[in-house]
C-alpha cells in the first residue's frame, strides 16, 4: 500500500527504532517520580529533600555506592533471567525461587567442602552448583510448557511458593543454626569483598560477584545476538510459527531457555551466600526475583539495558533505606510496581504516538 522505503528513510527508521526503545523507560521513570512525589507528600515531607537524601545515601558516599553495586549485582542476574526468557516469548515470574535455589545449592556444596580452600579453586564448583539449583527450578515450568502447553506464568508463580516452602523446611528441620534462620557458616572459598581492595567500602556488601554479573551479561548478549541458538530463540519469541517453519524445535527452545533463565537467576544467589554473609539464610532473596521483572522491562530485554536498569533499581532500593527516617521504605515497593505498570503501557503507546507524529511530519 505505501511506497517502498528509500535510503533516507532507512536512517529515519533506525532512529525511530532507537526512539521506540529509549522513550518508554524515560516516560515510565518520569511517572514513577510523579507518583513518588505524591507518596512523599502524603507523609508530609518535601520531595526535594527526600530525593537529595536519596542521592546522598547512594551515590554520594562510598558505603552507599558499595551497597548499590551489591544490590545491582543480584538484580543483574535476575534481570538477565527474566529478559532472556522474555526473548524466547516466555514469562519467567519464578526468578525469586530460582534465586533461592541457586544460593541454597551453593550453600550445600560449601557446607560439604573442607575448610580453608582458596576461592579461586572453589569458585567453579559454586558456580556449577548455583547453575544446577536455579536451572532445575527453571527447567520444570519450561518442560511443562513444551510438553503440555501449561502456561509458564502460573507454573513459575506456583513453584516460587513450593520451592521457598521446601527450602524453609529443609533449613528449619536440618540445617539451621539454633535461634536463627540461616545455615552454618561456610568455611571455604568465600569471595573477596570490595572492602578488601579499598577500605573506603567498609561495611558494604559489594564483592567479586560483580565480575561474574558483568561476565554473565556479556555472555547473554553474545548468545542472543551472535549465535545460531540465539537467532532461533529470538525468532521463537517473535513468531513461534515462523520459527517452527524455520527448522527450529520450538518446544526445545522453550525448555532450554527456561533452564538458562533459571540458571542465571540461581547465580544471583552467590552474591549473598558466598559473597556477603557466608551462609544461606531464609528469605535472603527479599523480592529481587520480582524486581528482576522490572529490570528486564526497563532494560528492554537487552543485556546492556538490563545492567543500567539494575543499577537504577538498586539505587532506588538502597535509597529507600536511606530515606526511611522521612518516608517509609515501603514507598519503594510501590514505585517499583508503578515503573512496571508504566513501562508496560508506555511501550505500545509511545509506538503509536511516534507513528502519528511521523505521519504528520511527513506531510
Amino acid at each position, binding site marked *: 500500500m505505501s511506497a517502498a522505503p528509500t535510503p533516507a528513510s*532507512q536512517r529515519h527508521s533506525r532512529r525511530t527504532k532507537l526512539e521506540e526503545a529509549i522513550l518508554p523507560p524515560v516516560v515510565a521513570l518520569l511517572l514513577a517520580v510523579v507518583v513518588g512525589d505524591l507518596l512523599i507528600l502524603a507523609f508530609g515531607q518535601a520531595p526535594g529533600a527526600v530525593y537529595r537524601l536519596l542521592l546522598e545515601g547512594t551515590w554520594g558516599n562510598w558505603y552507599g555506592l558499595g551497597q548499590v553495586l551489591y544490590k545491582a549485582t543480584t538484580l543483574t542476574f535476575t534481570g538477565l533471567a527474566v529478559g532472556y526468557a522474555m526473548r524466547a516469548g516466555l514469562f519467567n515470574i519464578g526468578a525469586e525461587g530460582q534465586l533461592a535455589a541457586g544460593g541454597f545449592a551453593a550453600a550445600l556444596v560449601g557446607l560439604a567442602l573442607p575448610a580453608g580452600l582458596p576461592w579461586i579453586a572453589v569458585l567453579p564448583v559454586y558456580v556449577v552448583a548455583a547453575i544446577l539449583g536455579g536451572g532445575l527450578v527453571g527447567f520444570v515450568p519450561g518442560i511443562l510448557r513444551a510438553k503440555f502447553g501449561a502456561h509458564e506464568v502460573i507454573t513459575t508463580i506456583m513453584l516460587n511458593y513450593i520451592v521457598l516452602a521446601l527450602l524453609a523446611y529443609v533449613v528449619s528441620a536440618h540445617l539451621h543454626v539454633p535461634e536463627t534462620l540461616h545455615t552454618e557458616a561456610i568455611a571455604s572459598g568465600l569471595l573477596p569483598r570490595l572492602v578488601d581492595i579499598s577500605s573506603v567500602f567498609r561495611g558494604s556488601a559489594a564483592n567479586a560477584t560483580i565480575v561474574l554479573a558483568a561476565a554473565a551479561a556479556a555472555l547473554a548478549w553474545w548468545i542472543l545476538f551472535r*549465535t545460531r541458538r540465539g537467532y532461533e530463540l529470538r525468532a521463537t519469541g517473535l513468531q513461534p510459527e515462523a520459527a517452527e*517453519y524455520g527448522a527450529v524445535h520450538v518446544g526445545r527452545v522453550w525448555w532450554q531457555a527456561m533452564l538458562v533463565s533459571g540458571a542465571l537467576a540461581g547465580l544471583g544467589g552467590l552474591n549473598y551466600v558466598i559473597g556477603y554473609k557466608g551462609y544461606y539464610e531464609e528469605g535472603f532473596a527479599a523480592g529481587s526475583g520480582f524486581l528482576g521483572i522490572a529490570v528486564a522491562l526497563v532494560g528492554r530485554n537487552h543485556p546492556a539495558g538490563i545492567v543500567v536498569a539494575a543499577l537504577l533499581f538498586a539505587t532506588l532500593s538502597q535509597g529507600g533505606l536511606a530515606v526511611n527516617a522521612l518516608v517509609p521504605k515501603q514507598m519503594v515497593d510501590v514505585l517499583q510496581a508503578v515503573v512496571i505498570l508504566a513501562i508496560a503501557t508506555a511501550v505500545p503507546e509511545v509506538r503509536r504516538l511516534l507513528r502519528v507524529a511521523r505521519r504528520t511530519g511527513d506531510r
Partner: protein
Amino acid sequence: MTVASSMPASTQRAGAARVAVRMTDIRKAFGDCIANAGASLEVATGEIHALVGENGAGKSTLMRTLAGLYAPNGGTVEVNGSDVTGWSTKEAIAAGVGMVHQHFMLVPTLTVAENLTLGSEPVRGIQLDRAAAEAATRELSERTGLRVEAARKVSSLSVGELQRVEILKALYRGARVLILDEPTAVLSPPEVQELWTVLRRLREDGGTIILITHKLDEVMAISDTITVMQLGRTVARLRTAETTPREIARAMVGRDVSLALDALSAPAPSSIAGTGGAHTLLSVRDLRVSTPMRERAVDGVSFDIAAGEILGIAGVEGNGQTELIEAIAGLRPAGSGRVMLRGSDAGEHDLLSLDVRHRGDAGLSHIPEDRHHRGLVLDYTVAENLILGRQHHFSRGAALDHDRIAANAAEQIAAFDVRPRDPATPARALSGGNQQKVVIAREMGRDFQVLLATQPTRGVDVGAIEFIHQRLRDARAAGKAILLVSADLAEILALSDRIAVMYRGRLVTILPRSEASAEKLGPYMTGAESAGGGPTAPAT
C-alpha cells in the same frame, strides 16, 4: 424485503434510478499505510455493482468505511441522499447498510440464532428469549431461501453455510444495501451459481448490492455497473454491458496485461518440456493426517511428481490441502503413509522420519501459504529472513557467520529484485509482493529438488505475479518437481502439467492439463463427481 412487482426488473430500475450510495473522494490511512487516497463510488438503487481492483487497491477499506467500521480521514459518504460520513456500524445497520465480510465475523461458540440476533437480542424481561431468536431465524431463512439450522453451533457449519448465515445476518437487520467482500473466494463453481441466484432475487426485491471482487469473469457474469480502483483511488467507472474484461484489467493495472483469463476458457495444449524418461522426485503413498477438528483431514492421498513437472492441486480451501502440505513439509505429524524424496545424489529419503531441517537438507523447499505468520519473521531483517530454516548452513560452530549471511543477502536481493535493496530493512517494512519475493528467493534460490508452493501469489501485485510464475516455469525447465496448491483456479490451469482436485481429504481425480477446464473440475471440487466414476450425492 418487498415483494417484486409484475414489471420486469430492468424497467423498474430505469424508472427508479435513485442513487443509493455516493462516496466522494474518500481518504483513509492506518498509521503509515494509505489505504484510500481519493476513492469515489456511485451506485443506483436496485443495481448489482462490482468494485474491482487488485489486492491492496483499497476496496475493502472503502466498503468498511461505508459500513461504519471506519471513519474516513477525508471525503463524504451519502446514503439515499443523506450525508452519513463517519457514522458507526450501529447507525449504518439501522439505516439498512449491511456488510458480509471476507473473513467471517461469526462467533464460533454461539449458535446460528445467537449470531444472527447479536446486538439486537430478543428478550423476555431481563432474560434472553432463545425461542424468539430461533423462530425469527427460521422465518427469515425460509423467506429468502438461504437454508440454515437455527440451533446449530456456528463452529460446526461448512463454509457455504457460514456465508449464508452472514448474509442472513445482514438481512435480519433490514439491509437494503448489501456489501459482499470477495464472497466466492471460498465457494466452488456450483455454489457460486447458487449465490448469483440469491443475489438476483435480492435485486428483484429492490435491494442494492455491492460486490468486492478481483475476478473478472464474475464481474462479467453478475454485475450491472463497475467501479475500478487502483492504489487507493478510483480510476474508472463502467457499465458491464458496454465493456470487456481486457478493458477492465487495463484500468486495474494501468497497462495491457496478458490475462490468465484466457486459460480459463480454452484448454491449452500440454507443455511438458524435457520430461522424457524423467525420474520421480516426490512419491506420496497413502498419506493420512488427522487434526483435533477433523479425524480424516488427509484421507489416504497418493501421488507422484516427476522431475520437470508441476502438479497442481485445485480445490476449495479447507479440504485438507493445508494439512497435506504441512505433513510433507514437517510442520504437522502424519498419521500413516510414506513420503519419499529423491535427492540430488539420487538417494531416496524417507521424509516422514526427518525433522524440518533435514527435509530441507534432503532437497525440499516450501513456500508457505501465509508469509506473515510462517514465511517471515517480520521483525527480522531481510538478510536474517533469507537464512530462515537454513541457519545451520550459515554458522561456524556456535556462532553465526555474518559475512556469509551478508553475501547471501546481497546475492538473493539482486537475483530476485527485492526492493528496497538494503538487507537491513525489517521485513515488516516491505510491500506484500516484495515480502513474497524474499520467501521465494530463499526457497528457490538454493539447491532443491522438490518445491511445495502454496498460494504463491496471494496478495501480490500483478507485476510480481508474472515474475513468480516465470520462476516456477524456470524451475520446471531445470528439472525440478513442484507441488502447486492454489485457490486460484486460473493460476492452477496456467501453470500445471497435471491437475488434481482435493475434496474432503482425498484426491478425487488427477487429469492432464489438456483435459482440464473449470467446467470439468467444478463437479469434483464439490464432490458431485468422484474418481470412482459417476456422480455422488452433492455435499451440503
